């Protein structure tokens, strides 16, 4: 733990930190553009220059690592002058088109120029411009004029995505960050969207979010991505009950700084036209009371052996608890179906994507809602007369149901709880419109057992209700005596189970890794 | 029927028609004048949309009042509520019956009116003219009180209570202040009082007309002030008191019924102006100008013009004072009435009486 002095403040910081990170720990912000903790150091923006005793020349904070006794100054006249100089240099060729630029409002360049820029320009010459006709794929918009040559994009694709699709072109003042759309390399990687946050100016912006709104108009709700079992931490940026974009939230245990482009862009189903508008009984619109009463009645009609509950792994842990209680009240089984060939730990790529396309497989497992291979037979054999089908819109459950699609559609007492229309909801006796993940509270357990909270960004669309409330009403209608009335109560009830699972999975993973390491050694 | 009686009745009907027509027109244009003059005093222009110089404005106002929805609130005493505007209007109209406007003219030699001998410019020449005026105008307070009572509204009731208290208080001053005039002219008959004012004060070297304002200056002032109070004009408009009791007794009234209250108020002012003119300003006469030698029609026209001018000045004075002085506080009003004006009126009465005692004993004048 080296002891250092920053701006006269003596502090002890962790080993191996650079000065930017060390200063951050005591709340001193050192402006920077090219530095990113996940990427290699290049020290080329020169914004993070600091004074380091006794070196006469200013040093870059990003490439200076703390050593015991270091004396750092970040607020001297010389440093401020250098920062102002760098800011001026960066802005002479940067087009001042913040009004058009999507980055405005969350732009490092803008923020730093508020602090170190000046209100006028001494640059009278022709600004440097670039051609805009360079294809950058479907996900991003590139406006090279705005580029400040931090090379974060190049390094990100080289070091994180490991697919070098960006490079330099030309030299000197005409240097351009150019996509290498050749040799089968395209900018449309699964992680290109991260440029949206990574690019410190507006040179690379997200096409999906382009011109939709301004970032300062958006409310940010902390949540977890539901699209695979990785459970990437995200912000849901929304306005007027509509999601505008998904942004990664830094969590060094799960997704570090990144999310994949599926998680970033595929939230359309939350606002799609196929959202179930309201509760239905036998195809006709009904009010909630009728629908819930009818559903609860139906679930009780055919007896325990002919009744089943089938739940997708998109349910939160709290909802899963209610499913279990409902099953207990009905005396039937609650199960998910095995997704064909899905191992929760299997990776789809080297970074974040997992094969398991449901958010909470592990959580359901911890609560005993596990795949029941016999259920498929029972369904196709017609043994099940009453089925509560929860969220068949989930891709994984839909795939698992593929073989028994017709059989399920023919079940007389089919109750479907889902947020979007499917073949099942169209065939169902009772349809209960549920909420998408952005509209609920609860917890997901990710592939390695980590229990993460999702927060409600806005109320469920239209007449839809939270799944927890619906299941609570169903369970009460089925005669269950349920103590937990809120998701918090439910979480408190299952917390121990979840923590046990987390410990177990951790152990399993360690064992697996050890085995893999030994296999490699051998 | 006796032809003289018939002639009298017909003449009276014609006079009533004429006087009412003139009075209503006068009231209408008086309200316009009030609006215009108030505008001028406040550096404004006032109404200028209806006709040249807004001369059609009163018509428009009247049409507006007629066309407005006649609302009768459900909580009012319906009979009294409907009667009150009429009760306010009728005394105001009736008062003018005894006011003379000019010297009588000889009746036409032949025809229906020949038997009358002369035609008076006065509806009823009764020998207790002033008493009649006091009596009838005193009735006006009933309209106000009943309006306030019938409205069943606390502001209206407060307004009418104020009105009755104020009118009773100032009626005394009004009556006492004018007694001096009666002493001087030794009559209650208004045309006689006017006639008496054509003479000059006898014991003074310069010819000063023996007008009421000259012989009874204090009486004039007291009468004027009391008149303002009687007509509820500023600074004595406490019955209305927009600021504290919304609009007083007529707060619940709208459309025509409201208009009747307004007509009554403006009629009162016109009549009060006419009475003051008769009592203190020599009526239709001009001193040092002898109009009696003129032919009858010209003479009447000239006298009417003089009378209108004099009365018009007082009518203007009402407006002028309204836009100059602020409203009294209620206690100030009462103190002024009882502790200042009433003693002064009595003092004036005593002084006048004393003067005549001396005069008749000593024999001057």
């Amino acid at each position, binding site marked *: 733990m080296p002891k250092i002095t920053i701006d006269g403040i003596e502090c002890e910081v962790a080993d191996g930190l650079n000065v930017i990170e060390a200063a951050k720990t005591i709340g001193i912000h050192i402006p920077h553009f090219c530095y990113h903790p996940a990427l290699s*150091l*290049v*020290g*080329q*923006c*020169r*914004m993070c*220059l600091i004074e380091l005793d006794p070196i006469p*020349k*200013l040093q*870059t904070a990003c*490439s200076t690592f703390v050593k015991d006794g270091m004396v750092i100054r970040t607020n001297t006249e010389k440093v401020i*002058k*250098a920062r102002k*100089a*760098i800011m*001026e*240099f*960066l802005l*002479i*060729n940067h087009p001042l088109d913040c009004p058009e630029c999507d980055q405005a409002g969350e732009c490092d360049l803008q923020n730093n120029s508020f602090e170190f820029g000046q209100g006028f320009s*001494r*640059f*009278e*010459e*022709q600004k*440097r411009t670039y051609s805009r006709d360079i294809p950058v794929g479907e996900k991003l918009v590139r406006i090279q004029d705005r580029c*400040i*040559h931090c*090379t974060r994009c190049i390094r990100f694709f080289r070091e994180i995505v490991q697919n070098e699709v960006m490079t*330099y072109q*030309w*030299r*000197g*003042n*005409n*240097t351009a960050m150019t996509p290498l759309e050749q040799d089968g390399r395209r900018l449309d990687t699964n992680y290109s969207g991260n440029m949206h946050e990574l690019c410190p100016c507006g040179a690379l912006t997200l096409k999906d979010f382009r011109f939709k709104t301004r970032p300062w108009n958006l409310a940010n709700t902390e949540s977890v991505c539901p699209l695979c079992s990785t459970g990437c931490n995200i912000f849901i940026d929304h306005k007027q009950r509509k999601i505008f974009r998904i942004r990664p939230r830094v969590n060094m245990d799960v997704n570090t700084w990144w999310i994949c482009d599926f998680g970033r862009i595929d939230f359309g189903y939350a606002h799609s036209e196929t959202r179930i508008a309201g509760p239905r009984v036998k195809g006709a619109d009904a009010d909630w009371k009728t629908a819930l009463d009818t559903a609860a009645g139906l679930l009780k009609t055919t007896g325990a052996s002919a009744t089943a509950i089938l739940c997708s792994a998109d349910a939160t842990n709290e909802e899963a608890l209610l499913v279990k209680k409902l099953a207990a009240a009905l005396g039937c089984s609650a199960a998910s179906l095995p997704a064909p060939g899905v191992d929760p730990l299997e990776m789809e790529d080297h970074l974040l994507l997992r094969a398991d396309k449901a958010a909470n497989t592990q959580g359901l497992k911890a609560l005993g809602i596990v795949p029941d291979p016999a259920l498929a037979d029972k369904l196709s054999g017609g043994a099940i007369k009453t089925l509560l089908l929860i969220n068949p819109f989930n891709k994984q459950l839909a795939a698992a149901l593929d073989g028994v699609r017709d059989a399920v559609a023919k079940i007389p007492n089919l109750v479907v709880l889902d947020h979007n229309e499917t073949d099942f909801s169209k065939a169902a006796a009772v349809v209960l419109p549920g909420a998408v993940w952005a509209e609920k509270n609860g917890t997901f357990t990710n592939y390695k057992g980590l229990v993460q909270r999702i927060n409600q960004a806005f109320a469920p669309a239209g007449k839809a209700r939270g799944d927890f409330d619906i299941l609570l009403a169903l369970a009460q209608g089925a005669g269950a005596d349920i103590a937990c009335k809120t998701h918090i109560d439910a979480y408190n009830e299952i917390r121990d189970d979840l923590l046990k699972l987390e410990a177990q999975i951790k152990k399993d993973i360690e064992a697996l890794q050890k085995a893999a390491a030994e296999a490699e050694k051998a | 029927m006796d032809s003289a009686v018939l002639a009298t009745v017909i003449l009276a009907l014609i006079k009533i028609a004429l006087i009412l027509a003139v009075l209503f027109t006068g009231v209408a244009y008086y309200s316009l004048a009030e609006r215009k003059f108030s505008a001028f005093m406040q550096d404004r222009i006032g109404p200028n949309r209806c006709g040249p110089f807004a001369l059609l404005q009163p018509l428009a106002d009247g049409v507006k009042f007629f066309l407005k929805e006649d609302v009768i609130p459900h909580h009012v005493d319906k009979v009294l509520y409907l009667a009150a505007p009429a009760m306010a209007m009728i005394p105001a109209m009736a008062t003018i019956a005894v006011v003379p406007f000019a010297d009588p003219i000889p009746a036409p030699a032949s025809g229906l009116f020949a038997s009358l001998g002369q035609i008076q410019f006065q509806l009823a020449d009764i020998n207790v003219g002033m008493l009649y005026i006091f009596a009838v105008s005193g009735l006006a307070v009933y309209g106000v009180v009943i309006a306030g009572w019938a409205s069943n509204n606390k502001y209206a009731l407060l307004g009418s209570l104020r009105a009755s208290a104020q009118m009773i208080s100032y009626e005394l001053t009004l009556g006492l202040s004018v007694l001096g005039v009666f002493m001087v002219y030794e009559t209650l008959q208004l045309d006689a009082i006017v006639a008496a004012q054509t003479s000059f004060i006898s014991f003074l070297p310069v010819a000063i007309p023996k007008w009421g304002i000259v012989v009874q200056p204090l009486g004039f002032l007291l009468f004027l002030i009391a008149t303002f109070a009687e007509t509820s004009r500023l600074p004595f408009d406490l019955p209305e008191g927009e600021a504290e009791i919304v609009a007083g007794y007529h707060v619940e009234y709208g459309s025509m019924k409201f208009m009747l209250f307004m007509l009554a108020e403006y009629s009162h002012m016109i009549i009060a102006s006419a009475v003051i003119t008769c009592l203190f300003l020599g009526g239709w006469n001009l001193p040092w100008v002898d109009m009696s030698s003129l032919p009858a029609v010209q003479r009447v026209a000239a006298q009417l013009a003089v009378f209108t001018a004099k009365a018009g000045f007082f009518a203007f004075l009402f407006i002028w004072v309204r836009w100059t002085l602020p409203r009294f506080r209620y206690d100030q009003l009462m103190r002024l009435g009882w502790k200042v004006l009433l003693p002064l009126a009595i003092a004036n009465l005593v002084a006048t009486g004393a003067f005549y005692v001396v005069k008749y004993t000593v024999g001057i004048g």
Partner: protein
Amino acid sequence: MAEIMKVVTRNMDVPDQHTIAVAMQNGAYEQLKKALEMTPDAIIEEVKKSGLRGRGGAGFPAGLKWSFVPKQAPKPKYMCVNADEGEPGTFKDRVIMSKDPHLLVEGILIACYAIGIRDAYIYIRGEFVEPANILQKAIDEAYEKGFIGENILGKDFTCHITVHRGAGAYVCGEETGLIESLEGKRGQPRLKPPFPAVVGAFQGPTVVNNVETLANVPRIFEHGADWFAAIGVEKNSGTRLFGISGHVNKPGVYELPMGTPIRELIELAGGVRGGRKIKAVVPGGSSAPALTPDQLDTQMSFDALGAIGSMGGSGGVIVMDETTNLVCVLTRLLEFYAHESCGQCTPCREGVAWLKKIMQRIRRGQGKIEDIDLMLEVAGNIMGNTLCPLGDAAAMPTRGFLTKFRAEFEAFIKSGANAEGTPMAGEGAVQVSVPAAE
């Protein structure tokens, strides 16, 4: 009057010196044999004692640099010979490589032996086609003779020398830029630290030395460190190859002891063309701030030039007579630096291009008096804030010209003259005849 002192250039007038046969007749590789008998540490000590300073520009002591390389390193160590002679006005290494390549090879081998390097790369400027060919031929001959390769001279010393031709980027003359380029990457300097002596080419410890530096090494062993240290002035030992160009009658490469006054060098080069007066002299390559005529008695040594705010640099002396238009000179220089900026770090990429644009505007006759102060400030903002010295190299002469010859710039701006179309320095205004060692 200074005397030409032929140390490095001793054999350069010998015909066919570039062939190994002739070179060996003149003693080539004798010092290698001598050095291989010594311990590596002793060699480094000897070089340190000689006071040999790097001839590339910064003047860093060569022995010290060698001693920085860790003895035991997990990765192989490398020697990079900087033959990317791109500095305007500098043309001394080319002479060595084309006239006496074996001297360089011998120097490289001694250095490699001293540091324990098995692989040396000569990074030669792409435009130097002929010197590269001569050098390659010399290396091939040395391989044949067993001076390069496995177990040199029967000793436990293996060294390979490769000629790597650059693609003509000035910035590849910077040591980390050179290494990047050598690795096959885009030629742009690396962030330091780590310094090449710790992590250099192919992640291994690397020594980067100038051609002339290494060419001096055999001479040190031939005559001894003390002899070498005695030449020149204190702390600036040995001789230097000065490439003099510009408005002198006999431009060319002259070898003189360090510390010779500039005036004497100019006289040696035949004086100023047409007997005109001198306006400015650039003492050490275009990056060095120019000297005014009253500074011509300054000694040509790293320390003396540094003391007056210029620098010894690469030894390229450019003489400008009174007819020279300094506006054109500075414009040309800035065009060069802006063109050669790698575009990596902000002050150099944006600042130098900005300076260039202002200077071009002034040259077009659209300058303003305030532009001079603006340029001085911009240059000041570049100085010291860049990743590599290229930014400084552009800012230093800018500041030098603008402060020392401010009156001329102001007069030019005030006159509103448009100098576009008049030849700029290097476009016929400065005549260079090569090679002219004598």
